């Protein structure tokens, strides 16, 4: 493991009596799609919240490309290049689709000009047009984001991740609530993105996980239960017991093992 893009040391977060993330030491190498799975309450989203600065850890440290980012504020971490999507789809509902992308692009700069016309920034404008094409929302560019369908909002979120040119992208259940067609469109986009940026994905849809992940980490009760390639995870006895072992899930475990 030469150069980890994201590394944590003994990361712990407690909410009252509940330990959401328990002494978690994880190291994610660059250049791969890393999936984090686990039953509800395993601490997956809490882990993302700790990495992006929405929560500060009780103890332990977080390193992004070797740099200690523990306790940094969310906008500082964002500017370093860690972007994320949220589990509950989250855009700027009253801004147009194009403006959602535009402000996401602008926010990378420290300085927002107070008097110049926003529309006069041609570079940002071009990037917005490009991104609209890429995510297939060009026809909806002037619509307020709050009026889009659920799947289109999810695509917009991926577009916002794209246009901000992250180094590390954290996706929190990106295909949740999507139709099968939208899911395959999103999966294709994520694969495409992974060629240039590092991606960590939380996902409940096992077809998606075993379809795109290079590595899988299984969390249970805030700690790592198992970690390895999709085939290793699918054959891991503890994982089968703790998470995949329910009879109705057998199908895709089998499927993945043969994949």
């Amino acid at each position, binding site marked *: 493991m030469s150069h980890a893009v994201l590394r944590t040391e003994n990361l712990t977060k407690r909410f009252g009596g509940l330990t959401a993330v328990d002494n978690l030491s994880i190291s994610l190498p660059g250049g791969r799609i890393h999936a984090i799975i686990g039953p509800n309450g395993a601490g997956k989203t809490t882990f993302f919240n700790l990495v*992006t600065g*929405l929560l500060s850890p009780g103890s332990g440290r977080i390193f992004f490309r070797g740099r200690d980012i523990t306790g940094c*504020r*969310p*906008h500082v971490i*964002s*500017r370093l290049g860690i*972007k*994320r999507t*949220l589990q509950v789809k*989250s*855009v*700027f*509902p*009253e*801004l147009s689709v194009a*403006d959602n992308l*535009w*402000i*996401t692009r*602008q*926010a*990378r700069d420290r300085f*927002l*000009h*107070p*008097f*110049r*016309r*926003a*529309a006069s*920034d041609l570079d940002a404008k071009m990037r917005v047009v490009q991104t609209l094409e890429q995510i297939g929302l060009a026809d909806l560019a002037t619509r307020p984001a709050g009026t889009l369908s659920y799947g289109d909002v999810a695509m917009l979120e991926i577009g*916002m991740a794209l246009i*901000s040119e992250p180094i590390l992208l954290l996706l929190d259940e990106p295909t949740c609530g999507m139709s099968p067609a939208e899911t395959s469109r999103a999966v294709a986009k994520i694969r495409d993105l992974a060629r240039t940026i590092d991606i960590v994905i939380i996902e409940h849809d096992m077809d998606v996980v075993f379809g795109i992940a290079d590595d899988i980490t299984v969390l249970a009760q805030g700690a790592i239960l198992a970690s390895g390639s999709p085939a290793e995870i699918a054959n891991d006895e503890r994982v089968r017991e703790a998470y995949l072992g329910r009879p109705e899930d057998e199908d895709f475990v089998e499927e993945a093992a043969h994949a």
Partner: protein
Amino acid sequence: MTGRPLAIGLAVGTAVFLITVPWLIPALIDSFWVSVITEILIWSLFASSVNLLFGYVGLLSFGQALYFGFGMYGTALGIDHLALSFWPAFGLGIVSAMAMALVSGVLAVRLTWHYFAIITVVFSLIFYFLAVSMKPLTGGDDGINFSLPPVLRLGGKAFGLTDPTFQYFFVLVVVSLCLFLKFRVINSPLGKGFLAIRDNDLRASLIGLNVYVLRLIAFVMAGFLAGVSGALFAFFGRYASASYMFYQVSGEAVVWTIVGGAGTLFGPLVGTALFIVIREIVSSHWEHHSLLVGLLAILAVIFAPKGIVGLWNGWITRLDERAAASPRLTLQADP
């Protein structure tokens, strides 16, 4: 018919009306109404300060009267105690309002929604009671009077606000400049940042916006607008009084903004004009005219959540859409 000519017509009509007020109004009604319209312009600038925070950044302040009061007292004390001339006193009023906004904003913008509303009220009440009790300096509720220095001298001739026509145009120019500045800010990258924070502050921080600093900038800008309006009102009334720092003054501006249309450039002007005209007409016949204000506010919140200007904009958009959807129909209508 599309909405565009209607919108342009309204804008041109309003502009022509505002420029001809000093001659038109005395000829049609009474010169008293020139001073009412001057007052409307000043208060609409004050309402704009509420609108900048509430309509564009999503912060509902019930304490903007504090910065209005600082603008007022900065100007009045500058003239009365420091013997400043017109422009330095004007500047002192604006700077003290902005400085106060910076100091209270550092604490206030950490909070949002009702907590923010409460802390802004608390700040304004603290300074209201301070101003009332520091009678030697502020004159308390009675206020302090001062005499107006001239605005400028040209070739030995002094122009001052004692001339109602000059005063009207002075206020019109200052208010227009401030609204133009606000327009520039709203349409700038910074303004889009404000809108993003209003819509979703969590997401805004995740895309890299420093939510706290942007809110603080907006708060100081709102302090600027309130300070300018306070200074203008001090010139207009030739006095400053602690009573204008009371939270009721802040609350009125919130109502004007919401009824006129929060988040629109001219909403505060429309709302302020409506309520001051109602006050001037009704209050001489009926002492409970504030009941009417309350009723209108309730109706606006229920039936026109984006205010009067929001209704108008929606109407124009629908006209445009109808025109775009059926081009043939308009052709037939125009033989």
